[in-house]
């Protein structure tokens, strides 16, 4: 997979800096995203991986200022094509959403409007953004439906979501995301709701669109297989913080953060026998992710980390470069500590 170097001369398409999102609950403040940085280059796919509660979805929603209440963006900047999206007035944001940055949702069954035909709901978006008149819209939509591999687009325009299969609905979801020719597409678990053979078709389609359109994408997923197949660069999140960022090859072949290593080791593999030479067990990670209502003072992974020292439990590690395009937040890898 070609990895596109982010050179100093071309600034990244999008850079999130010091993103902080808190949930204000009855029980207190849940620090769901707590100082997160990542960047996406032009034509690049950034994979954000992590388990549920790691803050990956909230981070991607924060880019569009769509975090659901009681969550609130507390701090940070989202630099995108020369402006800070977090500082824009709300009216200007509505021109960014769906137009310059669009989304592909996890479940196409619930993200499409069940009472509008495919043509009607896609046309609404084009007309709203002033990209086409009501009369011109069907032609543009048919062109996109063809692009995402749907046959007989004219007939599809008149169909309702319930008349389509899951795979076809997700193709419509992708066509919708591409309608306004956006600079960046956010895809949150775009294939998790699909069966594996359909997932493979949708991943093929996304890869093809990326090659043909030079599409830039943020792919949020918990599936290490999907991210290995799709991402140029990967950001690994754990308990609201970034552990490690780097090229896909670096993350899979020379991970440095103990969490990344442990996670990759603990996953069962399709291409390994667990019965030849006696029954083998998986190198599981003991314990579980910390609660974020009162997160531990130091490194969030310290309680489960085989390498943790007393210092790791006291101070938060700051990301440090350990190689070209490879950042790690770990005191044992040379990170500076920051008093929590």
């Amino acid at each position, binding site marked *: 997979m070609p990895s596109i170097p982010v050179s100093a001369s071309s600034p990244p398409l999008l850079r999130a800096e010091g993103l902080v999102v808190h949930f204000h609950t009855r029980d207190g403040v849940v620090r769901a995203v707590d100082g997160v940085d990542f960047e996406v280059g032009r034509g690049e796919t950034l994979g954000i991986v992590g388990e549920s509660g790691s803050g990956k979805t909230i981070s991607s929603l924060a880019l569009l200022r769509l975090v659901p209440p009681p969550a609130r963006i507390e701090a940070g900047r989202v630099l995108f094509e020369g402006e800070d999206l977090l500082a824009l007035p709300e009216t200007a944001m509505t021109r960014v959403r769906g137009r310059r940055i669009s989304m592909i949702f996890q479940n196409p069954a619930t993200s499409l409007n069940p009472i509008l035909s495919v043509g009607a709901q896609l046309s609404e978006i084009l007309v709203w953004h002033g990209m086409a008149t009501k009369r011109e819209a069907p032609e543009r939509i048919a062109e996109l439906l063809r692009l995402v591999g749907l046959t007989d687009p004219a007939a599809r325009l008149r169909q309702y979501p319930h008349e389509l299969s899951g795979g076809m609905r997700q193709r419509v979801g992708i066509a919708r995301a591409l309608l306004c020719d956006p600079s960046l597409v956010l895809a949150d678990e775009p294939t998790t709701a699909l*069966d594996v053979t359909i997932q*493979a078709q949708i991943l093929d389609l996304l890869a093809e669109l990326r090659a043909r359109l030079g599409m830039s994408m943020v792919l949020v997923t918990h599936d290490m*297989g999907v*991210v290995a*197949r799709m991402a140029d660069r990967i950001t690994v999140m754990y308990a609201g913080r970034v552990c490690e960022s780097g090229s896909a090859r670096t993350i899979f072949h020379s991970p440095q953060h103990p969490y990344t290593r442990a996670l990759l080791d603990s996953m069962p593999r*399709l291409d390994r026998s667990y019965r030849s030479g006696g029954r083998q*067990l998986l190198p*599981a990670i*003991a314990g579980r992710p910390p609660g974020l209502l009162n997160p531990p003072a130091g490194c969030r992974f310290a309680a*489960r980390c085989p390498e943790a020292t007393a210092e790791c439990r006291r101070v938060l590690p700051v990301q440090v470069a350990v190689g070209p395009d490879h950042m790690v937040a770990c005191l044992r890898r040379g990170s500076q500590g920051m008093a929590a």
Partner: protein
Amino acid sequence: MSTAGPLLQVEKLSKHYSVGSRGLFRRSGGTIRAVDDVSFHLRVGETLGLVGESGCGKTTTARSILHLVQPTGGTVRFEGEDILPVFAAGARPDVLRIRSRLQYVFQDPTLALNPRWTIGETLREPLRIHWPGRRDQWEARIAELLGLVGLEPQHAWRYPHEFSGGQRQRVGIARALAVEPRLLILDEPVSSLDISVRAQILNLLVSLQQRLGLGYLYISHDLASVRFVSSHVAVMYLGKLVEMAEVDAIFARPRHHYTRALLSAIPVPDPDSTQPRIALQGEVPSALRRPAGCPFHPRCPAARTVCREVEPRLEEDEFGHRLACHNPA
């Protein structure tokens, strides 16, 4: 009861639903063959992984075995006993005797545990039902069960909401083990858990099996976990068993074209993977419009004329590899 025979023997199990034959317009009715003529067996200490995509009939097969849905045909012998007629007759002592030996672990432990019961109460329930005469042993058994699944004795006083998903699934497993079953049906037991916790539960299942000599029927769409847990794997497509063999044979040398496509469709966690992909055209057809001949032929890269006309029988080779295909790889 012979101990040498299989723990579970499923013969020609079918679950058919007839649809749309009544009603205002009397549309031409149809039959959905959710499970169709499925046969397999499972020995003590073995795990049969049952795999396939949504709608293939794997969960209906499991539920039919326990008579949670009423099968339309076939027999299920458990420890040599023909159990479907026992469930159908519904005499409580007989049903309980079988249920205590044959337990089900659900996918989502949050939904499967009563939120108003402490963990102790949840574990006491099967003992109350199945061991009414052994009341003096209940508390010791609850403590033993908690230890068996890696929880602490004081956890008996807590409620499900105080636990993480992984701990709740440990409780779900402990409850299934309470009355010393011989066979567990595990329906996607790790799918709802965080990825860093799945390995713990998978290891627990394997260790418990070795310690207690259990048989498992493990249902999952996560084929990597199937490879880890199973000794044998059965692949279903549109209600039919299409291939079944020892786990390493299925993964290293799959012979049915559907199995091959299914395995090759799973993205490998390696960006340099050169794994060849067998792309399948289209989607699984509706069970109402089941293709004639081999149900897989419209999507099969190796389909021949015979595949469109004659449904292949599941046949076994000399290595015990069972396959329903006219033109295998």
